C-alpha cells in the first residue's frame, strides 16, 4: 500500500475509534433517567412537598414486569418514570407515597420500623404508625429508605387478599386499591447525593428478590440530590 492510502486508512480508523468511544460514553455510560427538580424556586430551608407512587409493574419501560417507583413532577404534575429527585439543603421534606403494590415480607423484619422521620412515625391513610409487621400480616408493599440520613419508612400496602389480587395493571397507576403514606424528614444541611432504596425483596424472578428493579436506578432505587 502506498503512503497516502496507509495514512488515509489510519485516519478513518482513528475517527472510527474516537466516534465509537464517544458513542459508548454518551449512550451507555452517561445515560440515565431524568432528575425531578423540587429545589427550583425554593429558598434553602423552606419546606418542599414531594410525591411518589409505587407500582406493581412498569408498563412505560421495556421491563413491563418490574416493580417501580414514579415521581410527580412539581411543575407539570405528570408522573415521571425516574427515581432521581432534587431537594434544597436543610429544608423540611414532606413526602407522600401512594402504595399501589401488594404486600411482600421483608427479608429483615427490622425494616418494618419507622426511623428518621420527624416524630418517628408515618401516617398510613391518616393514622400514625411506627411499626409494621410484614411477616405476620400483609402490611408492607415496599420501603423508602435513605440510609445516609437514617431514614427508613415501610410503605404500607392494601391488606386484604382481594385488594392484593386486583392491583392496578397500567403504570403510572391512577386507580385501584392503594394506601397513602405521608411523613416528613429534614434534608441534610450540606449538599451531596444520598441514595435511597427499597428493602422489600420485590425483584421477582431474581435471586433473593434483590436483582433487576432493585438494582436499577429508575425503578426501585435512586438518589436524593441535596442542593444548596
Amino acid at each position, binding site marked *: 500500500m502506498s503512503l497516502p492510502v496507509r495514512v488515509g486508512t489510519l485516519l478513518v480508523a482513528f475517527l472510527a475509534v474516537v466516534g465509537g468511544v464517544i458513542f459508548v460514553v454518551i449512550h451507555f455510560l452517561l445515560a440515565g433517567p431524568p432528575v425531578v427538580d423540587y429545589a427550583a424556586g425554593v429558598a434553602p430551608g423552606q419546606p418542599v412537598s414531594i410525591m411518589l407512587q409505587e407500582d406493581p409493574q412498569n408498563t412505560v419501560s421495556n421491563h413491563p414486569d418490574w416493580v417501580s417507583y414514579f415521581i410527580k413532577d412539581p411543575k407539570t404534575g405528570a408522573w415521571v418514570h425516574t427515581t432521581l429527585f432534587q431537594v434544597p439543603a436543610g429544608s423540611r421534606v414532606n413526602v407522600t407515597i401512594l402504595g399501589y403494590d401488594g404486600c*411482600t415480607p421483608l*427479608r*429483615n423484619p427490622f425494616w418494618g420500623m419507622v426511623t428518621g422521620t420527624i416524630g418517628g412515625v408515618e401516617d398510613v391513610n391518616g393514622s400514625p404508625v411506627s411499626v409494621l409487621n410484614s411477616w405476620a400480616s400483609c402490611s408492607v408493599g415496599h420501603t423508602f429508605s435513605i*440510609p445516609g440520613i437514617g431514614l427508613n419508612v415501610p410503605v404500607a400496602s392494601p*391488606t386484604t387478599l382481594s385488594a392484593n389480587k386486583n392491583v392496578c395493571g397500567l403504570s403510572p397507576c391512577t386507580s385501584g386499591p392503594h394506601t397513602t403514606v405521608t411523613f416528613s424528614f429534614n434534608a441534610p444541611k450540606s449538599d451531596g447525593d444520598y441514595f435511597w432504596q427499597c*428493602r422489600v425483596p420485590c425483584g421477582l424472578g431474581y435471586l*433473593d428478590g*434483590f436483582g433487576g428493579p432493585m*438494582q436499577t436506578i429508575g425503578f426501585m432505587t435512586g438518589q436524593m440530590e441535596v442542593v444548596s
Partner: protein
Amino acid sequence: MAAETSAPATGAGEREPNHGMRIFIIWLVLALASDLLIWFVLGPHLPPGDLASAANGQQFDIKVMSAMAAPVMVFVLIQFIYSLIVWRHREGDEEDGPPIHGNTRVQVTWITLTTVIVLCLFGFGTYELVNGPGAGAGSGEGPSPIVNPPGAELTVAQQMAPYSASKPLVIQVIAQQWRFTYRYPQFGGFETTYLAVPQNQWVEFDVTSIDVIHDFWAYQLGVKADADPGVNNVAYTKPLQLGSITVRCDELCGLWHGAMYDYGSVMTQSAFQSWATASQAHFADVTKMLPPYATTYDPTEIKQLGTVLVKLGLTGAGGGYYPPNDPSQP
C-alpha cells in the same frame, strides 16, 4: 532510576575498587536509618491505629514486616543503582562484559538468606495469629474459630445468656443489601443500625448475611470478616480506647456497595450499658417481630408467615427465582 545521572566512577585503568564493601557500607547506613525511621517515627502512626487489640496487633505486624522489608528493598535498590551508575556503558567501548555465569557462594547465600527471612516471617505471622494480642488477628474465622478469647460463646444458648462485663460481648452483624444491622443477643436480641462497643471488654462479632456476600470491616477495631449467606463468621477484638468507628463493606455487593458504610463508637462500660438498656426499650416493638436469635437466618422460610401472605402464594421473603417445587425459593 538514576540511569541518566552522571556520577563519578572509577576509570577503566585504575585499580578495581571493592564494590562489595562499598555497597555493603551504603546499605548498612541506609538500612539502619530506614529501620529506625520505621520503628520509632512511622511505627506508632501506622494504620489501623491502636483503638483495639486486633488493630494494635495488625499495626505491630505491619511495623515488623516493614522493618524486615526495608533492608531487603534498600539492598536491591542500592545494588541496582550502584550497578547502573558504575557499570554503565561508556562511549566507544564496544567490548562485551566479563563472562560471569554465576557464583555458587553468592547464590547459596541469597537463597539461604531469603529462605530464612521467609521462614522467620512465617513463624512470626503464625505466632501473631495464634498467640498475639488480637486472638485470631481480628479476621473472620468461620463458625468454629481456633483462636478464642477466654469465655467465648459459640452456641446460641451461650450467646443469649444475659450480659456480663466479665464475658465477651456478643454482637451479631447482619449484612444485607446495602446496610449492616447489629443484633445484641445478650440484651434481649434487639437489632439496631448503630454499632456501640464497650471499652476493655472482648467483643465477639458473629457476622452473617441474608443475601449476597458482604464483608464487615470495622477499620479502627481491626476487624474484617466476610458476611456469607448461611454462614456464621466469628471475629474478635478488644477495644482499648474510646473513639469512633467507621464500618465499611469490603466486598462488592451490588449497586450501592460504595455507599454501604456506617459509624459507631467505643464507649465506657457504664455508657455502653445504659445505651444498650435504652436501645432495648426503644426497639422493643420491632424486636418482637424479629425471628428468634440464631447464628444464621434464612428469610426464604418464614415460620410465622401470615395467612394472607400464604394465600398470595408466598412462603418466605425470596425472589421466586427457583421453581416452586424446589425445597426453597431464594
